[in-house]
């Protein structure tokens, strides 16, 4: 059975995810929203570590917290004036957003409740998950092995790099002016 400490840790992590994600979408300053997003990403990595997927947690920190957040901060600083606050939302928009959010939460909760198998289930015994197994799963060609998606993702990343360069490149005509 799980110890009391891990339950307390889980509660702390879950609460911080909820609170920071609410703050991230409700704060008026865009840079603060990015900071709250960083906290949410760290808490997500903590969840991965807690359920025993260390590789996933490390990848979450490296890719999201290390890469994407830096991109966000750069883009924010490039495109908006510091200290500028977003203007007040119209009530209509806010109600529409709240309605969609509550509908989504209700649908997820309904699915969880009706799926009886999940209720009251203890955490199964952790199977050791070593890097060798992940590597063979990612690079094997047999059943339940994922070489083809792996290569597809690599091609996608290449296309993304080239596309990013093409999109963000300055036109030569504009340079001359």
């Amino acid at each position, binding site marked *: 059975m799980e110890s009391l400490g891990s339950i307390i840790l889980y509660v702390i992590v879950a609460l911080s*995810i*909820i609170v920071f*994600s609410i703050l*991230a*979408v409700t704060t008026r300053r*865009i840079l603060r*929203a*990015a900071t709250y*997003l960083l906290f*949410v*990403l760290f808490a*997500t990595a903590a*969840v*991965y570590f807690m359920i025993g*997927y260390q*590789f*996933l947690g490390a*990848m*979450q920190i490296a*890719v*999201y917290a290390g*890469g*994407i957040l830096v*991109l*966000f901060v*750069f*883009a*924010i600083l490039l*495109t*908006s004036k510091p200290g500028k606050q*977003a*203007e007040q939302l119209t009530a209509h928009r*806010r109600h*529409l*957003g709240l309605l*969609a*959010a*509550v509908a*989504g*939460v209700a649908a997820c909760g309904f699915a969880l409740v009706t799926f009886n*198998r*999940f209720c009251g289930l203890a*955490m*199964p015994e952790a*199977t050791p998950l070593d890097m060798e*197994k*992940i590597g063979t*799963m*990612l690079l094997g060609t047999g059943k*339940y092995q*994922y070489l083809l998606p792996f290569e597809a*993702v690599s091609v*996608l*990343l290449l296309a*993304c790099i080239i*596309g*990013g360069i093409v*999109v*963000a490149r*300055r036109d030569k005509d504009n340079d001359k002016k």
Partner: protein
Amino acid sequence: MFGCGVYGFITRKNMIAILISLELMLNAVDINFAVFNRYLFPGQFEGMIFTIFAIAIAAAETALAIAIIVNIYRVAKNIDIRDLNKMKF
């Protein structure tokens, strides 16, 4: 968390805020993949592999979206979606 993402996606005006909300939603789905995999099928790792691919694709998509946003800002000096009602043609 997913609900927060949906709320932000609909209500925000700034494009980068919308992108942040999108990241929140993707993270919620990733957590779901990993946790359900861990609890229901502890012997297999398909959920984890899916999460890995989702993270990689999210990184690619974010980089491209930010490139587009910076380019739009350069043209229009503005990234509020309500004001961007004009394209090139």
